[in-house]
C-alpha cells in the first residue's frame, strides 16, 4: 500500500475551491477548474464508444459504418469534422455531421432514419449518434475549420443560417444574436462568444461536441442548439431540421481558420 500515491480528482471536490472572491477571481477559478478536468475529460468514454460503433456490424443489414462518406470519400474520418456542414450529392442536401451519420446508419446499416431523428437525446440510437459524432470530431482535433462554399446550396444555407441567427421572436424577444453578436459579454459568469465572426481557436462552433460536467452529459452540436433554443424561449427545433443545419453552416463558415478542440469539456 505505501508504494503509491493516490490523487483522486473528483469534480465535487475541485469545485469547492471555486465559490469565493471577486468576479474576476471566480472566472479565473473556473478556468483552473476546467484545466484540472482536461486531463480526465469523460468525453473520451464517448470517443471509445463511438469508435467501436463505427467499426461494429450493426442494424438490419449487419454492416459497419466504415464505408460512410462524411464528405471526404467513403471511410475518411480525419478532417471530415472541420468541413461540415457541406453539400452531399447523394442526398441532394446540405448536411451536418449528425444528420450525415443518420443517413449512413440508414443507407448502410438499414436503420429507420426518421425513427432515429425522433429519438430523444441520450437515448437509444440517438445516444449512439452522439458517441459517433464525438469520435469523428476527435479525429480532427487541432485542425482548422474550412467549410466548403463552392456549391450554391452551401452558400444558400449560410444565408439562411444568418437570417435564423438574427431571427427575434418569442415571449422574451430573444434571437441567437441577442447573446452572441458582441465581444466580451457574459450571462452570469458564462462568457459568450461572438459567433458572427471567427471567435477564436476552440471557442463556439470549434468546441462542440463537449462533455458537460454540471449534468454529466455528452452534448452534440444538435443538442447544443436545441438547448439554446429552449433558453431562447422558442418552441422545439426538429433534430437535423434545415434551421439547425443552416445555423451550423453560418457558424462554421464564420469560424474559418479556428482550430477545433472538440470534444471539449464544459461547466
Amino acid at each position, binding site marked *: 500500500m505505501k508504494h503509491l500515491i493516490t490523487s483522486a480528482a473528483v469534480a465535487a471536490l475541485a469545485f469547492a475551491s471555486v465559490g469565493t*472572491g*471577486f*468576479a474576476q477571481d*471566480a472566472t479565473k477559478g473556473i478556468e483552473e477548474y476546467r484545466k484540472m478536468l482536461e486531463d480526465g475529460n469523460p468525453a473520451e468514454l464517448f470517443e471509445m464508444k463511438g469508435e467501436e460503433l463505427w467499426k461494429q456490424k450493426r442494424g438490419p443489414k449487419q454492416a459497419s459504418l466504415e464505408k460512410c462518406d462524411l464528405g471526404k470519400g467513403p471511410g475518411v474520418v480525419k478532417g471530415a469534422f472541420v468541413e461540415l456542414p457541406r453539400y452531399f450529392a447523394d442526398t441532394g442536401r446540405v448536411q451536418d455531421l449528425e444528420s450525415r451519420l443518420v443517413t449512413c446508419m440508414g443507407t448502410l446499416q438499414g436503420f429507420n432514419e426518421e425513427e432515429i431523428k425522433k429519438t430523444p437525446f441520450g437515448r437509444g440510437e440517438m445516444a449512439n449518434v452522439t458517441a459517433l459524432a464525438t469520435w469523428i470530431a476527435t479525429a480532427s482535433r487541432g485542425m482548422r475549420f474550412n467549410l466548403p462554399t463552392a456549391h*450554391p446550396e452551401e*452558400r*444558400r444555407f449560410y*444565408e*439562411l443560417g*444568418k*437570417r*435564423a441567427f*438574427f*431571427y*427575434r*421572436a*418569442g*415571449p*422574451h*424577444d*430573444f*434571437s441567437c*444574436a*441577442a*447573446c452572441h*453578436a*458582441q465581444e*466580451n*459579454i*457574459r*450571462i*452570469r*459568469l458564462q462568457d*459568450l462568444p461572438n459567433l*458572427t465572426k471567427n471567435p477564436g481557436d476552440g471557442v463556439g462552433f470549434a468546441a462542440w461536441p463537449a462533455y458537460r460536467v454540471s449534468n454529466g452529459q455528452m452534448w452534440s452540436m444538435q443538442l447544443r442548439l436545441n438547448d439554446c*433554443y*429552449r*433558453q431562447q*424561449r*422558442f*418552441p*422545439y*427545433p*426538429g433534430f437535423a*431540421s*434545415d*434551421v*439547425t443545419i*443552416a445555423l451550423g453552416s453560418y457558424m462554421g463558415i464564420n469560424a474559418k481558420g479556428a482550430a477545433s478542440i472538440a470534444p471539449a469539456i464544459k461547466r
Partner: protein
Amino acid sequence: MHKTHAILAAAAATVLAGCASGPSPAELDAQAKAMMMANFRDQGIAKADRLKQDLGQAACSSDKPPADSVAKEIEAAALASIQWPAGGQYFGDWTRGERLAQSGRGMTWTDTSTATKDNGGNCYNCHQIDKAEISHGTIGPSLWNYGKIRGVKDVTDPASAAIIQYTWGKLWNSKAYTACSNMPRFGHMKLLDEGQIRDLMSLLLDPRSPVNQ
C-alpha cells in the same frame, strides 16, 4: 446626379449577382421565414406560434438596425402600450425584488406554467445589481447604485417622478426607449405582473435597498 448613377449601378449589380449565384436577398428572406415557421414544433408551454413576429421583432431581426422612421414607430407604439401602476403605486418590497432579480426561471419548454408567479426577472443574467452578487452578466449596463446615481433620495419627492416613470416604463416595455433593446418586455408580454414590477422598482430605486448603499 452622381449618387443616382451609383444607386442604379448597385441595383444592376444586384440583379446580375442574383442571376449568377442563386436566390436574391428578398427570396432568401422569404425562404428563411418559411424555414423558421416549418422547422419548430410545440413542446409543453412553448408553442410554435411563438415564432410569429410583431412589427418590432421583425424589424430587429437582421444585422442592421431598422430605419429611423421604423424605430420611431416601434418606440411610439411601445410607449403607448405601457400600463402605469394602479393608483400611482410604483413601489413594493426590495427583498422580494432581489429574489425575482436572481431567478432566471420561466417560459421555456421545460417550465410547466406561463403564470407570472412562476417567472423570474432574469435580471442578474445580464446586469450587475447588488454588488454582493458576483455572478452577474454584462449584456446590459450595471445597475449598482441605480437610484443613488440618479439622485433619488426620497421616492415621494416630485423631483424623482421622471426617473420613477422611466424605470417603470423600461421594465414594462423596454422597446419604448430603444426599439431593438435586448431586454424583454416584462409587463407587455405578461412575464411579470404589476406587483412583481413594483418589487423590482423598490430594488432599483428605494434609497434603503442594498443596491443604493
